[in-house]
């Protein structure tokens, strides 16, 4: 197995997986705590529609993905804030509408384009050095923003109205969180793909949630689990020659169920019922 590390492409993909794993699992903490899981899934599909439009029109696909992703999170965030419509309804509509757009854009292409499908399923083993640099640069921006605003992000995840009432600019922080979610999705699109990126955001944080009662511990657990699953998934993928995305996500899912079985919360809750 260790001779794999000698290959350049292997080093690149392990590094990319570790970066994307760390990034997704960090933002995932706030997504899970703030209850934005479904919104993130919708964003991933919208970003894919952006990629498809980019290829159709000859525009930069990742830029289009970013525009579509940002539009989706801002619209859903605005709808949630106004309370005009239930959040799951508005996201459900955007989710399917953007997927329909993606299918339409792909249908309009004259020729079969394998690269587009690469964004749907992701292939971390095919990451180039340039892409790795882009991933690293954007990860620094997103993680930097999270570190700078961590206390406000935790507060609005806990209770946005309480945060607003105690003088934190909660609305702006909420839209910052939404923007960071969209950025994370776009950064991860090439490596894990539009369908699976959300698992990478959701599962490590949800697994960590089972294991601790402290916010700071939760975040560190989530990052460790995210990096472990990404790197482990890539190794499994190249060793047994299976697709990398499913390997990462299924490894994370397995850990999630193990965590549920071991959760001190679950044991404590069954005691507390009495």
């Amino acid at each position: 197995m260790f001779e794999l590390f000698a290959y350049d492409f292997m080093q690149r993909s392990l590094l990319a997986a570790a970066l994307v794993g760390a990034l997704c699992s960090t933002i995932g903490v706030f997504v899970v705590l703030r209850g934005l899981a479904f919104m993130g899934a919708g964003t991933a599909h919208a970003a894919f529609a952006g990629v498809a439009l980019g290829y159709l029109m000859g525009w930069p696909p990742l830029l289009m993905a970013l525009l579509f992703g940002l539009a989706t999170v801002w619209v859903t965030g605005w709808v949630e804030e106004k309370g005009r419509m239930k959040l799951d309804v508005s996201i459900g509509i955007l989710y399917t509408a953007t997927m329909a757009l993606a299918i339409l854009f792909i249908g309009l292409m004259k020729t079969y384009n394998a690269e587009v499908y690469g964004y749907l399923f992701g292939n971390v083993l095919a990451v180039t050095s340039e892409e790795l640099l882009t991933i690293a640069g954007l990860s620094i921006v997103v993680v930097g923003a999270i570190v700078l605003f961590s206390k406000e992000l935790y507060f609005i995840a806990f209770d946005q109205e309480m945060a607003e009432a105690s003088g934190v600019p909660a609305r702006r922080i909420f839209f910052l969180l939404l923007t960071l979610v969209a950025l994370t999705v776009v950064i991860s699109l090439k490596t894990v793909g539009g369908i699976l990126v959300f698992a990478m955001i959701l599962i490590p944080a949800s697994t960590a949630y089972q294991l601790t009662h402290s916010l700071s511990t939760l975040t560190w657990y989530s990052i460790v689990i995210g990096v472990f699953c990404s790197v482990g998934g890539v190794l499994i993928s190249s060793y047994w020659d299976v697709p990398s995305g499913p390997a990462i996500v299924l490894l994370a899912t397995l850990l999630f169920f193990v965590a549920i079985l071991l959760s001190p919360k679950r044991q404590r809750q069954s005691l507390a019922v009495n």
Partner: protein
Amino acid sequence: MASHSSPIIHFDHATFGFPGVIALEDISIEIQSGEFIGVIGPNGSGKTTLCRAVLGLMPPLKGHLRIFDCACDELRCHHKAMIGYLPQKGVVDRNFPVTVLETVTMGRYGALGLFKRPGRKDREIAMESLSHVGMDMHKDTALGYLSGGQQQRVFIARALAQQPQVLLLDEPTTGLDITTQHNVVELVQHLHEELGLTILLITHDINMIRSRVDRLVLLKTRLYAAGPPADVLKPDILSQVYGKDLVITDKDLVIVEDYHHHH
């Protein structure tokens, strides 16, 4: 009673709501520093709207609202950290992974401002707030492991950590057993006396607070009465507001109401 210098909260013919829906209409009231005010009224009478207005989350549609030196005719008031707020129970996820001390320290975040991390002084203030509510020995316990009454104490400590001048409590006793209800109200009265906090306590349970407050404010979209409990709790005034839900026994007034949460 407090001195009648300038009021710290001043509603001046203020109307609140959303376009087309009036939640509170033409409210005028002055609240002095150091008062203990109980806000009562039936469901949907605008109690929670009053609360949101005082928090600066809702500017008046008409009229004026002044809180401290802040004219709250627009959003983005700067008085917020001066008001410690206990939201209705059930708003917060019980299983949220947070310890007691982490919860209380959040009370410091508004005052700290962006980019600054809580330091030793903030932890000291948080611990002091916890000891005011008698929960300092539980600082490392998970919030979800506490009983309902203990959680209320922790949330009150979180509000105290803001070092506020006003404590605003929205239905603090709902969902607690009778003994715990009394303990929570007693704690509030203790904080009022010991820390000199101005208290605004919103409740549907008149009998719980009537003997403790300086003034009662009776709402049903409009302000029906405001004054000492003896002046407000009169059968003719109350029956205007509560109608058939009002039952008057020998010595006591009892308001029978199907109480439901309204968010």
